[in-house]
């Protein structure tokens, strides 16, 4: 492996978070083409089947992680196997923070219909969400956002940009308009009238 590639390998090893091209270039002093070439060489050296550690594109940057075949042993070392799977409440809270973040706890609670305090604490403990300052409005509630760790655990190459758009999720999902019209239809069959709402926000 070339000296350039060796430097990139070392930088990816030393960093505890994924590094983007800018950070790599700044630290290595390499030009863009050299960087490109070096990354390619590191990718070849650290490919599944010939290395225990693979190069991956994640969280809008580059990082090394345990390969699929070595993941189990590494999880055992870090004692990640005894961790319980995410509960439904935690997954829903995570989804809200991922799509709507930074959001405050009350906002999460409003969307889910139930308080999210326990789920939020659980997700912080797991390193999947983190505090993101305070909202600039009444009460100045703490805001939460997903972490780089979240991107890495879920394998999101471009961070939250890799999340599918909400309106593509679940084809048969009723939108607010649809739910409303169903409620109206239901009311109509029962002889109840609910007037056409004047202005309805389009939700996505």
């Amino acid at each position: 492996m070339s000296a350039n590639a060796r430097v990139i390998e070392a930088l990816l090893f030393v960093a505890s978070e994924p590094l983007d091209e800018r950070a790599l270039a700044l630290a290595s002093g390499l030009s863009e083409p050299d960087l490109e070439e070096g990354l390619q060489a590191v990718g070849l050296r650290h490919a599944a089947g010939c290395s225990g550690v693979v190069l991956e594109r994640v969280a809008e940057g580059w990082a090394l992680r345990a390969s699929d075949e070595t993941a189990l042993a590494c999880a055992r070392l870090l004692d990640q196997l005894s961790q319980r799977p995410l509960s439904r409440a935690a997954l829903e809270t995570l989804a809200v923070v991922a799509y709507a973040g930074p959001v405050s706890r009350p906002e999460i609670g409003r969307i889910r219909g139930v308080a999210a305090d326990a789920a939020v604490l659980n997700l912080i403990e797991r390193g999947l969400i983190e505090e993101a300052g305070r909202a600039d409005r009444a009460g100045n509630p703490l805001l939460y956002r997903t972490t780089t760790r979240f991107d890495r655990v879920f394998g999101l190459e471009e961070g939250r940009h890799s999340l599918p758009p909400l309106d593509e999720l679940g084809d048969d999902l009723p939108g607010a308009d649809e739910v409303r019209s169903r409620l109206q239809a239901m009311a109509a069959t029962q002889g109840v009238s609910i007037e056409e709402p004047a202005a309805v926000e389009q939700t996505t």
Partner: protein
Amino acid sequence: MSPSSALALELDLEPFCGPFDLLLALVLRDVVDLGEVPVADVCLLYLAQIDQEGELDLESASEFLVLVSALLELKIRLLLTPDEVDDMPDAEEAAEELAARLAEYARAQAAAAWLQDRLAAVGLRVFRDGPPALRPPRLEIEDEGTGHPADLADALRRVLTRSEEVAEPIHVLRRRIPLGRLLQHVRDAVRSGESCTFDEAVRGLSRTEQAAAFWAVLDLIRSGEVVARQEAPFAPIELRAGARRAPVVGVAA
């Protein structure tokens, strides 16, 4: 999914048989006539489930309350005559809000389902979560004077004048103690011989691990897997296998 999720509540009602969330979906899709659904029975079934589980999961209970009250509100509207509905304040707004809320929640659920599928699809991803074990050789490079001593004085002043405990998140370092492995370690130690002492069982472990192992042993004693005996305070603790066998699932498997 937690076993006691209100949405998973199994219903056996005359017009409908299946989980609660399916009922909600069918009501919204007009497949089941809400007028026919005995909401009281749904509540009774939920209470019976809580009784059976013996513990109240607050998240699940509040989830149930919200959903069932929404259902009730809808049903009231259906049962009332148009005149009566008109008399109710903000009837449309309530319906409006309910619809918006259900739709928003449905999207959150869909997103949660996507995350869950994604997790299963990408598999176990393990990476280092902090600095490496060894620091890179440190070169002294030119440091610009980016800090100012006055900032330090200000910071210290802040510390010293903090009159009361300020609510500030306490960052506790996460120390990973491999409890599962420790449990297995103690099990193996006890199983391999007729008996062994606690000191033998934890030989080679660090101090923190030994403390955790002690906790693990207490748990094994509680479950009847291990029996312990100590002749006198500070005497060696003798451990041997108890009546109950270790479960087959082991982390080290």
